[in-house]
C-alpha cells in the first residue's frame, strides 16, 4: 500500500515538473493556502473544544465551590461574635473533599475567592483569606511564580496580592525590573501593596522605565492602599538615574506636599533635560515654593518655551506678589501669545489688592488683543 502511495506521489511530481513555471507557482500557492486553511480551522476547532470542556467543568464545579464558600465563610456561625478570624475554624471534612485536590478545581477556587474578596472586606474578607491559606492554595500560586511563562507569573503575583500574602524580596524584586512590561507593572504594583515598610524599594534598582500608564496605575494603588508607608521621595529625585522614576517621584512629592523635598527639586532646575526642568517647575509650583521664585526668574530668559510657560504658571500658583513687575513686563512685551496668556493668568491668580490694581492698570494701557486676553483669564468659567 505504501509503495502504491509513493508511486502515486512520484507520478504526481513528474506530472508537476512537466507543467509551465507559472502553473507550478500557482499550484504551490493553492496547496499552501489549502494547508493553511485546514490548519487554521483545526486550531480554531481545538480551541473551541477546549473552551467548551473548560466551561462545562466550571459549570459543574462552580456550584460546589460557591456552596463551600457560602457554608464556611458567608454563613459561618462565628461571624459577628467578636471572635478573631484566626481562631475561627472551618469544617475540616468539607475542606478535605477529594474534588479540591484537582488542579483545575483549585484554580477555579482561587479565582472565585478573589472575586469574593473584591466584593467583601472586613471579617468576611479576612475569612476568605484564611480559607485560601487553610486550603494551601498559596502553594499553587507560588508554584506558578516559578513558571517560565510570564502570563502565569502575572497570574501568581495578582493572586498573592489579592489575598494579601507576602512575597519575599528575593522573588519579587527581580520581577519589578523585568524586561516584560506587563510582568514588570504587575510586580511593581504588588510590591507597593504587599511591602509594609519600604513599598518603594524597587525604585532603587529600577532601570526599566515607568511607562505613563504604569504611573497612572501605580498612583491609583498608592493613593488607595491603606497604611502605606510614604517615604521622602526627594531621595530618588537626587540619586536615581532613571528619568521616569524621578519624574514620577516629582508628581508624588507634589501630591503628598513634601515641603522638605524643595531643595532637591530645585537642584533639577540646573538639569540639562528641559522636560525634566519643566517637571521640576510644575512640582515647585504645586508646592508653592516661594524660595524657588527667585531662581526661576533668574533662569527664565535661558529657557525654552515649555519651561517659560511652566515658570509663569508656577508663579501664579506661588503668588508671593514679589514678581508682579516681572509678570507685567512679560505680559506687555512678549511677542508669544502663550506667554502673554499665562503671565496674565499668573497676575490674576495672585488675587491681592496690588494684583487687582495692576489688572485695572493693564486694561487701560494695553492694546485690544491683550485686553481680550485679560477678559478671558478673568472669566472663572474658562479654565484654559
Amino acid at each position, binding site marked *: 500500500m505504501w509503495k502504491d502511495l509513493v508511486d502515486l506521489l512520484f507520478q504526481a511530481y513528474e506530472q508537476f515538473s512537466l507543467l509551465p513555471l507559472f502553473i507550478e507557482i500557482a499550484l504551490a500557492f493553492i496547496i499552501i493556502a489549502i494547508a493553511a486553511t485546514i490548519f487554521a480551522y483545526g486550531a480554531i476547532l481545538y480551541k473551541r473544544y477546549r473552551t467548551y470542556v473548560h466551561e462545562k467543568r466550571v459549570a459543574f464545579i462552580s456550584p460546589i465551590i460557591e456552596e463551600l464558600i457560602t457554608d464556611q465563610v458567608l454563613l459561618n456561625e462565628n461571624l459577628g461574635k467578636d471572635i478573631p478570624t484566626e481562631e475561627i475554624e472551618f469544617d475540616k471534612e468539607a475542606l478535605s473533599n477529594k474534588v479540591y485536590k484537582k488542579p483545575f478545581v483549585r484554580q477555579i477556587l482561587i479565582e472565585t475567592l478573589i472575586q469574593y474578596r473584591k*466584593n467583601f472586606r472586613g471579617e468576611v474578607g479576612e475569612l476568605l483569606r484564611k480559607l485560601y491559606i487553610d486550603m494551601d492554595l498559596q502553594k499553587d500560586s507560588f508554584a506558578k511564580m516559578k513558571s517560565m511563562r510570564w502570563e502565569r507569573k502575572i497570574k501568581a503575583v495578582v493572586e498573592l496580592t489579592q489575598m494579601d500574602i507576602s512575597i519575599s524580596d528575593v522573588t519579587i524584586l527581580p520581577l519589578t525590573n523585568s524586561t516584560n512590561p506587563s510582568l514588570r507593572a504587575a510586580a511593581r504594583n504588588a510590591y507597593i501593596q504587599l511591602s509594609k515598610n519600604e513599598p518603594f524599594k524597587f525604585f532603587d534598582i529600577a532601570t526599566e522605565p515607568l511607562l505613563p500608564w504604569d504611573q497612572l496605575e501605580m498612583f491609583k494603588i498608592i493613593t488607595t492602599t491603606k497604611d502605606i508607608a510614604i517615604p521622602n521621595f526627594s531621595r530618588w529625585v537626587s540619586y536615581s538615574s532613571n528619568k521616569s522614576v524621578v519624574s514620577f517621584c516629582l508628581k508624588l512629592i507634589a501630591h503628598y506636599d513634601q515641603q522638605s523635598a524643595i531643595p532637591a527639586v530645585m537642584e533639577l532646575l540646573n538639569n540639562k533635560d528641559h522636560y525634566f526642568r519643566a517637571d521640576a517647575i510644575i512640582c515647585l509650583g504645586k508646592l508653592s515654593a516661594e524660595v524657588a521664585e527667585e531662581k526661576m526668574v533668574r533662569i527664565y530668559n535661558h529657557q525654552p518655551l515649555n519651561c517659560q510657560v511652566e515658570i509663569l504658571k508656577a508663579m501664579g500658583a506661588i503668588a508671593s506678589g514679589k514678581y508682579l513687575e516681572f509678570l507685567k513686563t512679560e505680559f506687555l512685551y512678549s511677542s508669544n501669545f502663550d506667554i502673554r496668556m499665562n503671565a496674565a493668568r499668573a497676575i490674576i491668580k495672585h488675587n491681592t489688592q496690588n494684583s487687582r490694581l495692576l489688572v485695572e492698570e493693564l486694561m487701560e494701557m494695553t492694546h485690544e488683543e491683550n485686553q481680550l486676553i485679560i477678559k478671558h483669564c478673568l472669566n472663572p468659567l474658562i479654565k484654559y
Partner: protein
Amino acid sequence: MHEFGGGFHLRIKQSAEKAINRYMSNILVIEDDDIMLKAIRNILRKDGHEVLTAKDGKEAFEKLDNEQYDVVITDLMMPYANGLEVVSRLRANTEKRHVGIIVCSSVGNEETITEAFRLGADDYLKKPIMAGELMIRIRKLLANRSANLKLVTKKK
C-alpha cells in the same frame, strides 16, 4: 397628600408593622455580578429577610412593578438600566417612593455618590463591603422608615 390615602396607606402600615416587629423585610437585590448577587442573598436570608434578586435593570423594573419591597439594594453599573435610573424611577413613583434604597457600588467618586443621594438613595455602600455593616444599615433603614411611617399615621 393623595399618595398617602386609601389602600396604599394600609399597605405601608402593614409593611411598617412587619418591619417593627421582626426587622424582617422583603428585599430586592439588583446586581449584575452573579457572585455578589448570591453572596448578598445568602447573607440577608441568614439575617431573616425575604430576598428576591434581579440581574439587570430590566428585570429589576419587572420585579418592582409586580411586588412591594421594603428595601431595594442596587448596584450602579448594570445592563439595560443603571442603578441611578432605578433610584429615580422608584422615587418618582408615588406608590413606591417609601421603599428604602441602598446603593452598593464600586464607584467611589464624589459626583456619583452625591447624584445617588440627590435622586433619593437612603444609603451608599462602597464595594468591597462589610457584611455586618450591610445588615446593620438595613436594620437602621427599616427602623427609621417605620418610625417615619408611624409619625405620618399619627398626623393622619
